[in-house]
């Protein structure tokens, strides 16, 4: 890769992380207005994984996500206006208000679906990879999954099959140490999480999920390996800053410590990457501020779009039960 192209991806990824951050911080800020009337699971602090992985994907590659889907949706190129309208329950939502924040999708952008049942999208991702392998169309599917998904049997069933058939699928485990309020140590025995991949003969990489370059490099390996018909597993360490579901910080309620949060706070993938780019002379403080302004304007416009979109009519609810 030439220096130029590299600069390119770095700025692109920085911009994408910042954009996602601004979207979600704005959601957090405005959630108390009680106009976004659905559960929201924010990815603030975890943007590095979504962005680093999706940046190496082609537009026609596929992504499946979970309840915590905003970052994946945006990083894969999902339409921002449609996302905000969906969260507001409006007619211009990506699915017309049928699903809300937990069901975001934009199939045209390759964002196939978000499924709020833990691990339930994993076999779907494996299935699109099976179809794509049949069609020999070179597409890769990325299955984003939380650390809790490793506990669900369906992950194992899917991984076994993916490896058996050589499917172009990448399982990306975003390990943020928690399932709701429960620490990994209270849910799984101690051993490298990559041993889980090994059980199914999956090759894996384990990197710091808050280090954009590391994620992107590992993802590049994972995606290109998968593209040749060898499914892969990425383990990315990260941390969710705000509460599991909702807009607030919750370090005081007892399940984790302020100290733990602070350790991760300083490893903010966005701030770290901004500094890195500044130090590398790729980004100036001024251009960052300018970028932030531009993006915030875009975000605000999306909120306005969503707020101005009408509520869907009840009779629309009866459509599309059957194809």
């Amino acid at each position, binding site marked *: 890769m030439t220096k130029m192209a590299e600069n390119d991806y770095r700025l692109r990824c920085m911009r994408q992380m910042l954009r996602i951050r601004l979207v979600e911080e704005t959601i957090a800020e405005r959630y108390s207005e009680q106009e976004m009337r659905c559960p929201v699971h924010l990815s603030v602090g975890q943007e590095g994984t979504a962005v680093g992985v999706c940046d190496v994907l082609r537009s026609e590659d596929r992504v499946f996500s979970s309840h915590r889907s905003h970052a994946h949706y945006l990083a894969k190129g999902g339409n921002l206006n449609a996302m905000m309208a969906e969260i507001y*329950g409006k007619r211009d939502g990506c699915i017309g208000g049928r699903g809300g924040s*937990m069901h975001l999708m934009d199939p045209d952008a390759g964002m196939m679906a978000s499924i709020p*049942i833990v691990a339930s999208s994993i076999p779907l991702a494996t299935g699109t990879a099976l179809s794509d392998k049949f069609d020999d169309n070179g597409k890769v599917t990325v299955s984003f999954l939380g650390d809790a998904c490793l506990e669900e049997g369906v992950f194992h069933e899917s991984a076994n099959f993916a490896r058996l058939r050589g499917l172009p699928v990448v399982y990306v485990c975003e390990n943020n140490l928690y*399932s709701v309020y429960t620490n990994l140590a209270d849910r799984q025995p101690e051993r490298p999480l990559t041993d889980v991949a090994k059980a199914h003969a999956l090759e894996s990489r384990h990197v710091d999920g808050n280090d954009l370059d590391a994620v992107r490099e590992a993802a590049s390996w994972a995606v290109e390996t998968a593209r040749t018909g060898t499914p892969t597993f990425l383990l990315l360490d990260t941390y969710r800053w705000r509460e599991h579901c909702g807009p607030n910080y919750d370090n005081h309620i007892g399940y984790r410590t302020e100290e733990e949060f602070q350790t991760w706070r300083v490893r903010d993938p966005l701030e770290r990457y901004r500094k890195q780019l500044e130090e590398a002379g790729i980004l100036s403080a001024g251009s960052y501020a300018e970028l932030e302004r531009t993006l915030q304007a875009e975000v605000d416009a999306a909120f306005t779009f969503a707020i101005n979109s009408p509520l869907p009519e009840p009779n629309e609810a009866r459509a599309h039960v059957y194809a």
Partner: protein
Amino acid sequence: MSMPDLTSAAGAPVINMGTAIRDGLLEAARRDPSVIFFGEGVEDPGALFGTLKDIGKHIGHNRMIEMPIAENGLIGIAIGAALAGKRSVVTLQRVEFALLALEQILNNAAKMHYVSRGNHKVPLVLRMIVGRGWGQGPEHSQSLEAIFAHVPGLKVIMPAFAEDAKGMVTAAVEDDNPVVVIEHRWSHYTTSAVAEGYVHRPLDGPRTVRKGDGLTIVATSYMTLEAVRAADRLAEAGYPVEVLDLRVIRPLNLDPIVESVARTRRLLTVDTGFRMFGIGAEIASEVTSRCFDLLEAAPVRMGLPDHPTPSSRGLVRGFYPDAARIARTAAEMMGVDEAEIARIEGKILADRGDVPIDVPDPFFKGPF
């Protein structure tokens, strides 16, 4: 609205159904050291909507078993523990999560006593919560009692009122059979005077919560509250109807319903689940077969329409049966004229006021 015939505990503290359930579980666990609790976040700050709050503090944290996110395995494990003499109480945040474990529930839990010719028992309580409102959407709102009710060997209960719920969960824990407890999230908020200490309410069948001769309404879970509201306005207008809270879906005890319908000659069922192939069908068709010559009209069933639950508050308008629709349907069945119906309906809508559609009406908090 008041419900004197329901409370045996006048003067007792007024608490909500969620707390009453928690108290009942704690009481049962205190009396029997073999009771153990399973849950995802079983002792976390949320404590399963508060329904397991501090139980571990009282009975020992070792009896509170944190479930990895693995419903099929963990419910199977709870069944295994029950086979070895424990009374396993599993709580799931949503009914949907149980779908992962139906093989364990419908085969091992439901049939082990039978298959073993009575050698094994499965004292298991499987609590699961029906979500509603605030955009829960299609996969966090289903009320799938019809699935569990279809399978012999399971018991299925749906409490609607605080004190009754306390007594019913106690009975469920003490039962030697697998008992599925389906709790509507909006019922958790309803309050009533609830007797302190040990309360036991047998899992024996429906209870009459309103008396009247115009029509019999059989309602389940949260819909009982909507039905009572409708009944009160109907009574006020001179059309008293009977409301039975079904409580126990399986084993189904139709006797009190048949008795009521024999008098009122009309039956209306109101469920929290999908109407098609729902539990109302069993009640309606069995009551028809037992009261055919007494019926003035075909039973009517209300339930959810034939599509998934959308998330947006725009789309759920009209999705859930409510007091106004129940009153209208009941009144139409009784032949009340349209002007009168519109008046009654109007009153109910005024009662509701401008409470948004996607949050529980404070009115339903009670106390009952």
